[in-house]
């Protein structure tokens, strides 16, 4: 494999609330970022994702160990030099009144511009290119406060690109976005990593999307240690299940998603296939039933008849049959029992 752009050596992250005290968040992190890869940092709340991001960015001192960008230690780089190699997208909201999208992206050229910050022809090109790369060209002249969350996030990513760094760190870039926008941003970031040869590390709570999009995962369980690998390897090794094990929620290694763990209200024998069957299963599981397709000996049986929008649900119970036109109707009836 090629040489890493960023690597940490025995990095111990945490805080020093006062001179004598220190709060350890995660010890001995040894991890690397390679050119052109999209890596997702995931972990339960409070595991220290943000602390790790801040430490990698040089914004917070590590308790021990080093973060290196190439040969240089992040904490030793002068601010301007660091800004040319590493750029950030943070969770804090920008509300600079009177700033246009293109002006925001142009701020990304600050590590390269003169004392007053005037853009050269090359700088202008880089800014335009960055906007194009995130598909936000038509937003260039819009005021920031007129942009939707998704548009704003694209512009913030364009700004980070305009810094022409080797590493981009993004702290929960999809947090405020709806599902289609999240997928769009993730796909875009993966493409950017591949096309530009930059390493992109992003923290996210969106596990399913991370599993599908990331080249590799940095998995940070509470108290550590940080585990890295292809998403699939971490699922197969059970690392995922362990990191997110908590009451009420269970990671399903088959689907790569989380399920509410509810006390079984009973077993339902479901007959049917296709999309309606999948969504009926989800509904029944949510209602607390254990769905056993073709299961025998269950007093409850649901049969699906008809296609798609015409689907009808037949509930068999103790020889009686009730007919429903919607999943909701079925659930209401089941709840009454």
């Amino acid at each position, binding site marked *: 494999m090629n040489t890493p752009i960023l690597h940490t050596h025995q990095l111990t992250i945490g805080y020093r609330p006062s001179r004598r005290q220190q709060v350890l968040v995660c010890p001995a992190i040894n991890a690397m970022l390679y050119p052109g890869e999209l890596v997702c940092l995931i972990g339960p709340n409070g595991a220290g994702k943000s602390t790790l991001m801040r430490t990698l*960015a040089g*914004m917070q001192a590590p308790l021990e160990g080093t973060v290196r960008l190439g040969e240089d230690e992040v904490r030793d780089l002068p*601010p*301007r*030099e*660091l*800004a*040319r190699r*590493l*750029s*950030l997208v*943070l969770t*804090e*909201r*920008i*509300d*600079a*009144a*009177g*700033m246009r999208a*293109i*002006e*925001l992206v142009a*701020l*990304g050229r*600050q*590590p390269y*511009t003169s*004392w*007053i*910050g*005037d853009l050269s022809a090359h700088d*202008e090109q880089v800014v*335009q290119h960055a*906007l*194009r790369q995130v598909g936000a*060209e*038509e937003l*260039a*002249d819009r005021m920031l*406060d007129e942009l939707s969350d998704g548009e704003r996030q694209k512009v913030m990513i364009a700004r980070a690109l305009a*810094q022409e760094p080797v590493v981009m760190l993004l702290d929960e870039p999809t947090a405020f976005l709806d599902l289609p926008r999240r997928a769009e941003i993730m796909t875009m970031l993966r493409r950017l990593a591949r096309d530009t040869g930059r390493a992109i590390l992003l923290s996210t709570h969106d596990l399913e999307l991370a599993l599908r999009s990331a080249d590799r995962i940095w998995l940070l369980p509470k108290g550590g240690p940080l585990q890295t690998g292809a998403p699939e390897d971490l699922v197969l090794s059970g690392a995922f299940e362990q990191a997110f094990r908590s009451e009420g929620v269970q990671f399903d290694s088959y689907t790569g998603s989380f399920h509410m763990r509810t006390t079984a209200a009973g077993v339902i024998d479901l007959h049917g296939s296709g999309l309606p069957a999948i969504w009926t299963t989800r509904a029944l599981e949510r209602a607390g039933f254990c769905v056993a397709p073709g299961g025998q000996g269950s007093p409850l049986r649901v049969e699906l008849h008809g296609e798609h929008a015409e689907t009808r649900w037949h509930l068999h119970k103790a020889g009686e049959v009730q007919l429903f036109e919607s999943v909701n109707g079925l659930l209401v009836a089941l709840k009454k029992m």
Partner: protein
Amino acid sequence: MTATTTPLQSLSQSSIHHTRLRHANQLKIMVVLLLLLIGAFLLSLATGSVTIPLDQIITILTGGEATRTTWITIVLDFRLPKALTALLAGAALAVGGLQMQTLFRNPLAEPYVLGINAGASLGVALIVLTVGGTGTMLLAGIGLLGDMGIAAAAFIGSAAALLIVLTAAARVQSVTTLLILGLMFGFAVSAVVSLLLYFSIAERVQAYINWTFGSFGGVTWSQMPIFALMIIVGLISAVVLTKPLNALLLGEHYARSLGVDIRKARMGIVLSTALLTGSVTAFCGPIGFIGIAVPHLCRSLLHTSDHRILTPAAILLGGIVALLADLVAQMPGGQVVLPLNAVTALLGAPIIIALILRRRSLRTAFAS
């Protein structure tokens, strides 16, 4: 090259075109502001208890002989230093306010949030309220000392406050902490001033209150070089800080990630603002409202947050507003002079209210 223009390229062309148009428009506004500033300056030389024709003003300024010799004295010894003081003070307060609003990312920030003003008022209060024997002696003393004694006291007070704020600026993590420290320091110092006032005799209290009204008329030609030098140094440092100020529009974290040395930038901004507002307070008293209102006026006039444009605009508009406020306070033709601070607030408040209501800030406040 005859490459066909793709929609994307044409879009980027149009965006560059828009940027050019905007810059041309901003340049026009700046030229208008400059002309207005010159107009306001000449007007303030022409009006007062005696009205002097404009052509005579120009003759006097270019070293010629006016039709009446008293006019030369009035213009050169009284109105010119006063107009220059107003111009410099207005520019200083506007730029100081702009820097504070950006540093604290707070539209309500003003040059005095650092507590510099409070320090100055304590200095003045100590001199006016405690030095000297009896009331009559004190009033005579003030006359003898000239306003230089008060200016010196205000300056020492400002400098002491500045040292405290700078120490804090270097130590504290968050800029919000600095803002709160500045405000609390201001409250505490004001309380001390209140105590001094409470235990003072009426004449002294009156003398102190006169100082708090603010005036551009106190700077003599002998004081002008110091005053002008300090303001000009402050303004130049504000221009030098343009780039970090622009980065700080995104907050300290982003500014740092853009290569700004936050600690240096913060110290520079605090020092520049303190120099600007400290000088104004020392020589003119605590002049309110220009520092908070003018930056907002500039933003809405020029539709930008870029300090490359806002700082020069604030210099021009600050000068204009200060000159106009002084004109109104003079009550042209009348013999009464209104307190300057009352005028700036009475003129400024409606403008700010109108701006805020028009800018849909209320809506955006709820949208986010």
